[in-house]
């Protein structure tokens, strides 16, 4: 047989790195792991201050629904102002 059926492929092997119950902050240079409490609806990143609304695919599987818009706008405006000042 030309294929080795027993050996795991790289993709299969990477399954062991999978985590549930967490997601990453959406701020590129932050990307911190956030772990909301069970069915928590909002979470704040302790590193960069971004706040997210949370949707639960399953009780053990949260995802970011979107940012908290007021916080998102405030942080973006502050960041843009800083750039303009430079």
């Amino acid at each position, binding site marked *: 047989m030309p294929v080795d059926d027993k050996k795991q492929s790289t993709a*299969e*092997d990477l399954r062991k790195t999978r985590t549930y119950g967490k997601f990453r902050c959406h701020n*590129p*240079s932050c990307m911190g792991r956030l772990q909301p409490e069970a069915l928590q609806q909002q979470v704040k990143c302790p590193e960069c201050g971004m706040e997210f609304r949370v949707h639960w695919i399953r009780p053990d599987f949260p995802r970011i629904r979107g940012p908290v818009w007021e916080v998102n706008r405030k942080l*973006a405006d502050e960041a843009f102002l800083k750039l303009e000042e430079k």
Partner: protein
Amino acid sequence: MALNRKIAYIDLTSGKIEIKSIPLEVRRKFIGGRGLDAYLLYNHAKKGCDPLGPDNPLIISGGILTATLASATARTHIMAKSPLTGLLGSSNMGGFFAPELAWAGFHHLVIRGQAEKPVYLFVHDGEIEIRDAQDLWGQTTTETQWSIREELADEEVKSLVIGPAGENLVRFANVMTGIKNSGGRTGMGCVLGSKNLKAVAVRGSQDIQIAHPVEALEYNKRFIDQITSSKVNQTQGALGTPFIWGATNSWGGIRTRNFQYNQLEYADDVEPERIDEIAEETIGPYHMTGCFACQVHCRAQYKIPSGPYAGKYDEGPEYTSQGAFAGEPDCKSAETVLTGNHLVNQYGVDNLEIGSIISWAMELYELGILTREQTDGLDLRFGNDQALLEMVHRICTRKGWLGDTLADGGVPASEKIGKNSFDYLIQVKGMSNLHSDERATPALALNIATSSRGSDHLRSRPAIDLYHLPEKVLRKIYSSPVAYDGPLSSEHTSYQGKAWQVFWQENCYMAVDCLGICKYHTLFLGTTLPNFEDWPKVIYYNTGLEFTPREIWDVAERGNMIERLFNLREGLTRDDLKKGDTLNHRYFDEPCRRGAPDVVGRKIDRDKFTKMIDEFYQHKGLDPKGDPKPETLLRLGLENEPSHLV
């Protein structure tokens, strides 16, 4: 068995039909699907042919694994010279058409010529008929499919059809099958329209003999487990592809108001969770469905909840419809997204292109480049949902000056509108960009700039670059099946190593398009999904053909190179804004203003971008101008193209 599926050559001018086998030598070089289509196009299209003329061959295919025991082999590929770009035309769709084509005995149809009157093809169990379609002309995509089933008295017939947009030669018309499966991008529906070909109907009952059925079934269980256990596919099964739009909008990667902003703020009504609620309210809890042999079920069914189309059934929307009818035109209504999605499906037009081009016109209107006289009185402001939907009707029916102008595509429209309108057109190689904003993600910017069919996310996007994966994980993925020890960066705002990632993904996506598998079943959005190392087993058990992972990579590289040869023959040059591997100036000049704090201020660095293109060309074996080096063609066995083996 799969390997005995045939190619049919159909001449609509003369009515002549020829059926031929696919030599094993050709299978080994191109496998099937898109790779073999690219070979056929390069060999059968004359240089400089009119995309709407009889000499433009239209090629329709399934992959080598289509309708075998492998998973998610639903994809149909369509290729021709594009009437939108004048370069490679290529589109790919799910549904149930390709398996039926394989059961009817065929893997590839090459359609040439031009019928005098509207016709459709009926392909069934080794035979092909050219049938009258005058009664079908003018029907929507759904009506056409049901009419064909009624005429043939067989509800199991699967058809690939065009709607009014294709008949009206809208340059970005789709080929459609089912309710929403779209061969979108590059205007393949327009090519059918130019040939007076309303549809291709198929019905088959020929068995496909599996080379090693017990092993194929056994391995497929493992393959399915790999597919269904991935988090990304579990999310797709719950929310469909809109989850991608939602996640991207969250950090500021969605182009808004054409290209003025990079986030649609307060977009709660068009977020995937809200669309899912509407699907549940109007259809019920089991509203997700899928394509042939797929376990992911990423397609929602819904009814439009309100407005003039309230109660109309449709499927989707895909994330592209959120971009087309929410982000780009700055509209924030689920009703508009679901209605727009319904209209494009029924007209048979590319949602991505039509949303982009209307949003471009909105920006021109607000800048005073387009006048109210040119819009025939329509107040084409951003955020005007009614004007947006009205423009969909006008473009698809070529109504009014602007509808007719935009129906020809962005580049010709910019020439007609004049002034500096082209500066605002967000396109690559004449095809509008996806709804995403790549200013913060250099790898994704490189992907859209170099994609063979024009700006596109499904040809080489390293989407996993956004996941901040540890470098050792990236290295595990990107150093197989070809050794790579160059730079890689897990930082998605970096330029380092991105050229290799894009090159790797380009080959990965070509490979799945040759096999006939959906991209959600490979390393597109999830790292644990199958790729080169997994495919030899599926191919061998199902077809008996032996490939190493490296050989599949070589086939993919060859397929990508022959697509490039086609584009070069049709005038591609590296820095040409209309036909080259580059981006609109706004990517380099205008910084992001919304989104996550570290996205704000990002734009593409022109020098670093140029260096990335240089690196990408080196990986592909191209010279600095973007032409293949002779040794590259020799290595890939393409030194004698066109070789006319089939």
